[in-house]
């Protein structure tokens, strides 16, 4: 968030009192930033910025998050928490805008199996639940009024290891571009995922506020043109046989996408792909240590501004698993931080990324869920999925 002395306080070289945060009086919080950050207010909606009283933590130690101990300032109070079973929130009479809260009690149930959740929804036990993968089309036909699909602030992409530990052929930008062109994004979204996802040709999703990603040259081509271009690029790079390892974390949906893409690469470019799936924690270690060639990744914005995506490809970013390093991009990212009009800067960055191809954007996520028609007030256009029960109400049908 760019708070003054954040790095120093985190690593212990500065005392906490040096952090650029101060309470001037009971109602005024002053945040001092390292440098001007036009989108700073947007970052404060992230849960990590919510206030927590120090005395409550000191009084209860590790148990400060338990019902009865936890002190929050929202419209609801957590009254019950059974790990892996349920958590219950009830109206907070001390909330400043309590008069506007309508729903008295909200229960969140933990249901590990999405299909069981769907059955329980159908039986009327739940008001809202996610749609299991592969069920979207069927449900949209059988329960059209209850099936909701909204864009989410997330991009699904493949990251390419550009360091020496990666595949040497991938150091050639033409090979990376060829791989990107050979992917038929429409097959992935329309035939495999089938839940309203949009193809991604830029890293920043279209749902992002204040920035319209530029139309990538690839987006306006037909797939046949892209395939032809991909073959040309591959030939120009002088690569006639390539063995790649594609890594993803264990999940039915990642597997389907990986199989489809490996087939596309195989058929169009003759690339032999070995699929390797890793259990989540194992997978988390590998790309970060550049222990991969091509890996599946996804990124969801922490706040609704393009930098939450594009900063990831800055050379200093800890999430830059590609180890992409383009001084021009770094410079533009720095410029954007202090600029009032970021559209041209972000556009330029996206254009450079489309050419350099350190990552291959694949699709833009959607949130799919079922919700009873008597539930109203849902913030459908909140692409960060920040949903507050205080906005919801139920109507008699």
């Amino acid at each position, binding site marked *: 968030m760019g708070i003054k002395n954040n790095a120093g306080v985190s*690593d212990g070289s500065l005392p906490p009192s040096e952090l650029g945060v101060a309470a001037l009086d009971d109602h005024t919080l002053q945040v001092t930033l390292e440098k001007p950050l036009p989108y700073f207010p947007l970052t404060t909606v992230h849960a990590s910025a919510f206030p927590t009283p120090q005395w409550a933590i000191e009084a209860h130690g*590790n148990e400060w*998050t338990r019902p009865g101990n936890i002190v929050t300032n929202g419209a609801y109070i957590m009254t019950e928490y059974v790990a892996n*079973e349920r958590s219950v929130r009830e109206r907070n009479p001390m909330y400043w805008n309590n008069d506007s809260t309508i729903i008295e009690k909200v229960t969140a*149930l933990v249901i590990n199996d999405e299909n069981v959740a769907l*059955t329980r929804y159908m*039986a009327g036990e739940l008001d809202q639940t996610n749609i299991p993968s592969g069920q979207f089309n069927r449900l949209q036909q059988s329960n059209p009024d209850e099936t909701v699909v909204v864009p989410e602030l997330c991009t699904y992409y493949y990251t390419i290891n550009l360091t020496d530990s990666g595949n040497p052929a991938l150091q050639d930008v033409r090979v990376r571009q060829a791989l990107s062109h050979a992917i038929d994004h429409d097959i992935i979204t329309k035939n495999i995922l089938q839940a309203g996802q949009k193809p991604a040709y830029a890293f920043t999703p279209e749902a992002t506020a204040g920035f319209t990603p530029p139309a990538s040259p690839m987006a306006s081509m037909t797939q046949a043109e892209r395939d032809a271009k991909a073959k040309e690029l591959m030939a120009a790079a002088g690569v006639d046989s390539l063995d790649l390892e594609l890594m993803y974390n264990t999940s039915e949906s990642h597997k389907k996408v990986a199989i489809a893409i490996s087939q596309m690469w195989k058929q169009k470019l003759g690339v032999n792909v070995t699929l390797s799936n890793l259990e989540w*924690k*194992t997978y*988390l270690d590998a790309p970060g240590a550049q222990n991969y060639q091509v890996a599946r990744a996804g990124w969801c914005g922490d706040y609704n501004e393009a930098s939450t995506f594009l900063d990831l490809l800055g050379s200093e970013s800890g999430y830059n698993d590609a180890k992409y390093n383009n001084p021009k991009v770094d410079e533009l990212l720095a410029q954007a931080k202090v600029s009032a009009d970021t559209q041209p800067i972000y556009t330029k960055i996206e254009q450079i990324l489309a050419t350099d191809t350190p990552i291959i954007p694949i699709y833009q996520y959607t949130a799919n869920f079922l919700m009873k028609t008597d539930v109203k007030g849902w913030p459908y256009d909140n692409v960060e999925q920040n949903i507050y029960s205080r906005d919801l109400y139920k109507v008699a049908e």
Partner: protein
Amino acid sequence: MLNMIIRRTAVALPTLLILVIVTFVLMHSAPGGPFTSEKPLPPQVLANIEAKYGLNEPLYKQIFMYLQGIVTELDFGPSYVYKDRTVNDIIAQGLPVTLTYGAWVIVVMLAVGVPLGMIAAIKQNTWIDYLAVGFSILADLLPNFIMGPILILIFTLWLGWLPGGGWNGGQWEYMIMPVIALATSYMASITRLTRSSMLEVLRSNFIRTARAKGLPERTIILRHAMKPALMPVISYLSPVFVYVITGSFIVDAIFSTGGLGTYFTNAAFNRDYAVMMGVTLLTGGLTILFNLLVDLLYGWIDPQIRY
């Protein structure tokens, strides 16, 4: 008998120690750790957290500290994921749930399986026998992970009689489906086991003698045939107990009952080391205890068995 209990306990301790060491080493050799996440922590912050939990110490020292905590304070350590809970808290919440439905599973299994097997044997080759055998074969084809969703479909979605999951403090309507799902296939095995062992006993010499004496059939079965016929069923109870624990992974996942089963899988996925150790050790200990109980029961039923 006391001798045997002492002997078994003496063997149990090193067994559990080996279990702790092997689990500990296996767990720590898996890549990643409890605090690796999609958004990695700054190195200094990670180091602070690891130091807080003693994860920066060499492995042998961690094992020693862990064992010391258990022996001196019965403290199984903190959970790294549910940060407001210790392993003791988690077990205190999950174990009663698992034991409650587990006990019902064993009761239902025996209360249905044994009489059904007995009747089938006594009325061998009649329609009752065929029905019981047919039923047990059918039930055998329905393991818990299939039974669970089928039951939910029937009793929650179609009939609307029972809630589709949750525990809600252990109310009976929340318990019915998990118990049936877990009991069905083993109940079938118990039926067949009882039937075949009863048939064998009914053909043995001492039963023929009893019949020749002119004892009524009822006395023959209840007083003479039942005890020996139940021996195989009793020896079958220790694997059943282990099955109830392992089956609880599935039941907890399908019915969101919040029992210990959930923690086995989640703790492994989350690298929640202490929770993983705690539940493994607990299951190991209970298995040893249950085997001992079954052996004691054996000796009580069949006086020929001496320890």
